[in-house]
């Protein structure tokens, strides 16, 4: 498969691994931002190929993991309305809210459907005129253009039975929150290649300069990640701190301007609650006033009245916030693999395949079985 096989090639991967070992003279801690990268690192055992001093920590770039509990509670209330068809990306369905998840709501009679694109919701809206179609708009800058397009088209077609529950989040403010934390141990970043495909590199150039930290825009295949790590260590070892692009086959400095314009048209930047982390200023998108009639929060205001919209902190031993900030590893959690498993997750990172805990659980718990 072109553009896949060559990036999963053992010889090239090992060549990069040995090049990394050659240039590394001291210990460095690097954070990969995106959950897709975390998944790839753990799935392919990329960290096993690195010299002992290089530590990879897993950033907050799993949209499933950072969606606030209050939003999931709202999603469940919306899905449970008798006239609603509630549409979501697949891996949001098992994320626990305060009391239950969307799959349990489905089992209790809610009409919850998995979609691959928000535009599929418009098809449903056209063919189910007597039902309200609500889309759970989750994700980083990568999925936002498709949500924006759905809202834009719905406006054009004057579809009055389509609305969205917006949970979109932005990467750069989260990176700044991590860098500004007094506990920050991150010396370099692998930025999320697909987010940058949409947004370009410019925001990262500013962060790199402001915090003197190397940021490498990186892809998702093993060779991409190893090359990204190599470029990052090259900078660290030579005392440079710049934003560089490893994922040149997808990312342009200016990004996808059509997508950006569409996002600008539909969304406005707001503060957002991150599960396990708390509120981060200017870290989310919400619908502009002009498109407020597509906001499920407003359309179903009465039904959502009783649901808290503040940050809900459940009393749990889950340390997901610390894991997503890179302060702890999944293994450090007392509940990991015992009281918290993919079947009974205490926190979101154990649910999504992009979540650090689930990735560790799936690929790394062999010691007690040998």
């Amino acid at each position, binding site marked *: 498969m072109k553009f896949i096989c060559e990036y999963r*090639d053992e010889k090239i991967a090992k060549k990069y691994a040995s090049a990394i070992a050659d240039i590394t003279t001291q210990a460095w801690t690097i954070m990969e931002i995106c959950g897709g990268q975390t998944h790839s690192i753990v799935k*392919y*055992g990329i960290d096993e190929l690195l010299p002992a001093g290089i530590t990879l920590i897993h950033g907050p770039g799993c949209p499933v993991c950072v969606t606030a509990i209050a939003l999931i509670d709202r999603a469940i209330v919306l899905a449970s309305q008798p006239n609603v068809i509630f549409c979501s990306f697949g*891996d949001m369905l098992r994320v626990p809210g305060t009391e239950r998840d969307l799959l349990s709501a489905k089992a209790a009679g809610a009409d919850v459907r998995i979609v691959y694109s928000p535009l599929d919701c418009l098809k449903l809206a056209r063919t189910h005129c007597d039902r309200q179609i609500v889309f759970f708009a989750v994700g980083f800058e990568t999925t936002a253009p498709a949500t924006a397009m759905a809202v834009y088209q719905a406006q054009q077609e004057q579809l009055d039975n389509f609305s969205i529950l917006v949970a979109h989040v932005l990467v750069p403010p989260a990176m700044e929150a991590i860098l500004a934390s007094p506990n920050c141990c991150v010396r370099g970043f692998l930025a999320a290649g697909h987010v940058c495909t949409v947004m370009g590199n410019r925001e990262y150039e500013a962060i790199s300069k402001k915090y003197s930290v190397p940021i490498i825009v990186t892809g998702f295949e093993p060779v991409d990640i190893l090359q990204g790590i190599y470029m990052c260590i090259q900078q660290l070892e030579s005392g440079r701190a710049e934003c560089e692009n490893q994922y040149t086959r997808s990312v342009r400095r200016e990004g996808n301007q059509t997508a950006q314009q569409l996002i600008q048209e539909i969304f406005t930047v707001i503060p957002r609650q991150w599960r396990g982390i708390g509120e981060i200023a200017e870290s989310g998108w919400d619908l502009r006033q002009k498109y407020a009639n597509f906001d499920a929060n407003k359309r179903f205001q009465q039904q959502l009245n009783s649901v808290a919209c503040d940050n809900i902190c459940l009393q749990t031993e889950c340390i997901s916030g610390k894991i997503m900030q890179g302060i702890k590893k999944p293994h450090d959690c007392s509940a990991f693999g015992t009281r918290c498993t993919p079947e009974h997750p205490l926190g979101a990172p154990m649910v999504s395949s992009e979540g650090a805990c689930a990735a560790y659980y799936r690929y790394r718990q062999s010691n*007690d079985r040998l």
Partner: protein
Amino acid sequence: MTDFNLSCPIPLEQYPHVLLAHGGGGRLMHQLINRLFAPTFQSLGVQHDSTVLNLPTGKIAITTDSYVIHPLFFPGGDIGSLAVYGTVNDLAMSGARPLYLSAGFILEEGLPMETLWRVVQSMQKAAESAGVRIVTGDTKVVDRGKGDGIFINTTGIGIIEHEQLIVPTAVEPGDIIILNGDIGRHGIAIMAVREGLEFETTIESDSAPCNSLVLELLAQGIEIHCLRDLTRGGLASALNEIAIAAGVTISLKETRISVREDVGGACEILGFDPLYVANEGRFIAFVPEVKADQALKIMQSRDRDSGIIGRVTGKSRKSLGLVTMESKIGTTRIIDMLSGEQLPRIC
């Protein structure tokens, strides 16, 4: 498929759809049995509450499975052929020669009679190709909205004509694992239809009977420790089930597992791991190392994508079982059971 229309023996102009009465025990039900089921399945004479069969002496194998699938017809198969091959393959996995099947239908009121006719024809065709006979059956009709068109249950009986004990507990360290072809086609064919995905070529299900290949392996004197068909949960789940049952560790090589390019591409798009995608004509055989090459040759003569994908490396602690795989970049990772359904990822 209009040719079925022409030969459908139920007077379509009178009953173009299944009625509740077709399962009610009266004339309509008898008409359905006598005009549709019995002639198609070439029933063995007298209709009675049960069918009496002559079986050879010795051990028999019996299995049952229920089939629910949407859509009912998909590239490479349909619910009818699936209901035959699935049960035939379950018998074959015990090393049995499948002989007879029962067929229980739960039909939804309003199902087009032509659809039922097509499914029943397909079952008979599949039964002929697998060398089994459908000898008894049952029909129930549920209210409209309480079914999904057709649900089918099939029970199969087969005879064991050899002395081998083909069970997970017979798996031993050192055993070689052979897979009879590429994986993932059935699950992706179904997903492609459900999601309206279009590829350059149509991905067809691998749905097929495996009994003749298994019987050939046995006839050629291959010692087989265990067989398992790779249905729901795919290769990864089958290997984990056996590793746990046998209390062994299994090591695979990713580069040895054949995944067709279009299937691999679809998995990338959908966010699925082909190791967990369903198959309906694929199985793994655990054989002692001395017989591995001979077994592989026999399997490759049927499907050149057959290959040795790994081996049993040792006993696991506490009988927990462990499956690991050497990845394409030479590192090792665990292949675990799925916690639930494989859910598509966000991005």
